[in-house]
């Protein structure tokens, strides 16, 4: 087993399903025998605020939080949040960005402008940035809410863990009636990445 700790940062907007995605990720990593720590913030920030979930795994993990410049993978459920959390990406890290915009209140009120050409900037700053159409894929599958599973599929692939058995974990974490669509979304997410 790789002894180095791997750091995955999931960021987005409260209500986007980052918590369920990180739950499946951590439960799966535990089942593969890793030491795992996960940290997230509940409460007020969840009301449409900027949210982040830190997942760290390896042989032995101490800190539950990831520091700036240390995330091996950052997955942004919302485009502008990718910009906010970019300083957390490590030098050789991989950024995955959902091509999806949610306007914050200052933008809705016209007090600020939603940043333009985010993808261009991110790709220049973090070579290898993957912009994925998770929202569109989830829509095509028939339920916009499974966007989080599409992104989870992409993360698992990026981590090189797509060959592992995630089925049992996924089934235990979502309601019985929603298993099938979540499985399809998870599988679709894995195909959004090259290779």
């Amino acid at each position, binding site marked *: 087993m790789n002894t180095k700790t791997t750091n995955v940062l999931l960021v987005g907007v409260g209500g986007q399903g980052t918590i369920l995605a990180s739950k499946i990720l951590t439960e799966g990593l535990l089942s593969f025998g890793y030491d795992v720590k996960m940290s997230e913030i*509940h409460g*007020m920030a*969840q009301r449409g605020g900027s949210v982040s979930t830190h997942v760290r795994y390896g042989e032995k993990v101490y800190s539950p*939080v990831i520091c700036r410049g240390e995330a091996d993978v950052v997955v942004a459920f919302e485009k502008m949040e990718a*910009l906010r959390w970019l*300083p957390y*990406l490590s030098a050789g890290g991989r950024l995955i960005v959902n091509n999806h915009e949610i306007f914050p209140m200052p933008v*809705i009120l016209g007090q600020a402008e939603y940043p333009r050409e985010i993808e261009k900037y991110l790709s220049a700053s973090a070579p290898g940035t993957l912009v994925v159409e998770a929202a569109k894929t989830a829509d095509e599958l028939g339920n916009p809410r499974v966007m989080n599973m599409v992104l989870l599929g992409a993360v698992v692939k990026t981590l090189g863990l797509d060959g592992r058995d995630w089925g049992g974990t996924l089934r235990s974490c979502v309601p019985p009636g929603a298993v099938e669509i979540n499985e399809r979304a998870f599988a679709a997410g894995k195909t959004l990445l090259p290779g």
Partner: protein
Amino acid sequence: MKVILTGNEAVARGAWEAGCHVAAAYPGTPSTEILENLGRFPEVSSEWSPNEKVALEVASGASIAGARALCAMKHVGLNVAADPFFTMSYIGVNGGLVVVTADDPGLSSSQNEQDNRWYALHAKVPMLEPSDSQECLDFTRAAFDISERFDTPVLLRLTTRICHSKSVVETEERVESPVREYGRNPAKNAMLPAFARQKHYIVEKRLEDLREFGESSPFNSVTMADGAEIGVIASGVGYQYAREALGDGANFLKIGFSWPLPRRRIREFASKVKTLWVVEENDPFIETEIRAMGISCFGKDVLPVVDELTPAIVARAVLGKEPAPGREGEVPPPNRPPLLCPGCPHRGLFFPLSKKKDVIVTGDIGCYGLGSMPPLNVGETTICMGAGFSAAIGFEKANEKAGRNRKVFGILGDSTFFHSGITGLIDAVVNKSRSVFVIMDNRITAMTGQQENPGSGRTLSGEETVALDIPKICGACGVKDDNIHVVDPYDLKASAEAVDRAWAAEETSVIVTTRPCALLKNVQKERAGMKCFVDEERCVLCGACLKLGCPAISKRDGRIVIDQEACNGCGLCVQVCPKSAVGKKGES
């Protein structure tokens, strides 16, 4: 069995394993999930209490009667429960009594950053401080034994990172612990002055016994590293950060039994290292004791008191290592502050109130605190639970003295009303306040993630129960029927009329809004098909709808767009549109 649990889940599991019989709490981030999880174990009688003081008194009564009891709260909750907490230190326990305080360094969801470790010192009770989920489970189990062995409540101190971080935990099965015998014993349990005076001697002696016990507690442990000269004394998540940052390059004295502190072990550890560092979040609690012992160390002179620590902060302080520069964005993106949800019923009262000139709005703790953000900007004070009402009374008195002609509106929610708003309303009536007291009744404790309260009609375990009637309570507190305005906040006209009438009243008046929280499952189901939409031919882009501050409404590419996924068809935008350009479908 190996599982991955949050600290809160692990505390609940540990209490269950320890044979806990009774648990009580008032919800508060980051502590809420402890009772939510305990409520799933049928062996534990768990309840949401109206406030933390009641919760601790329920747990105290259970303990005196011989049951193992736990009470959980956020840090500021212990201020509310401080009264029973200090006296239970004198009374001690029969069945084990564990008090959990969940502090919030970094203020992720709190009004202050107080360090509740001082409560252990102040109330002279032992304190345990876990640093991960396994320790949350182990320390909770041990806390019941320590409580019974030393006849004292035990304070279990968590922080947000401990509560809401997950790590791997080895669980065990429940060990049944029969409810102990109870016999009448006023000298122990009735703290009349004569008895309490005697008890104080016992408390002082107990503290010395506990200090001796802490010297050999396995929760305080030393890890020496070959050739390392640095020594670190750390507790809580600070220990994990220090281990992460310093690895095997430092010696550690990890403090888990953190009051009373093990002075001999500290002195011995300090004598073996060249430089000594104390890594703890917020106040210099351990450091103060170490310095008082005459031992020199680095602590809050180089580490911050404010906010959370991180491994990078520890590495910079101890090793002088500059944090990774990361990759700065060229332009920092706009802020994304938390906000009132689409369809939030609070908006329907805040909107007409935001139009009112010459008003002062004293706010409170809950989602409605978000009304003070743009564009509504309603609310100017937030102190603590209940102060939305009581501070209004004082504000009115000061306004009178200053000759300011401004009507005061005090605002709080249903759960806050039951918690400590009722007493403020009684004060208002009895002392003839002419202010307006608004209860935004959404039938649930919303901000913390929808916990039942005395107005919900259900208990923590989901059982049906009485749903208290807020207008009737206001009437019973002495507010005249004519001055109690009950409105549906989705009806802007009715809300505005209620605000106007209350504004003009010369006596204490009350407004109660009656829409349940838009996030409630049954509400979401009921309203699933209800959506508002824009008729672009009529829309003149005046932006009146944007002034509601609804996150579902935005202007994109020169058009007003309503996000159909987020919208719940509350219809406020339909009512504010001057051109009748917003329609609504799926009306029930």
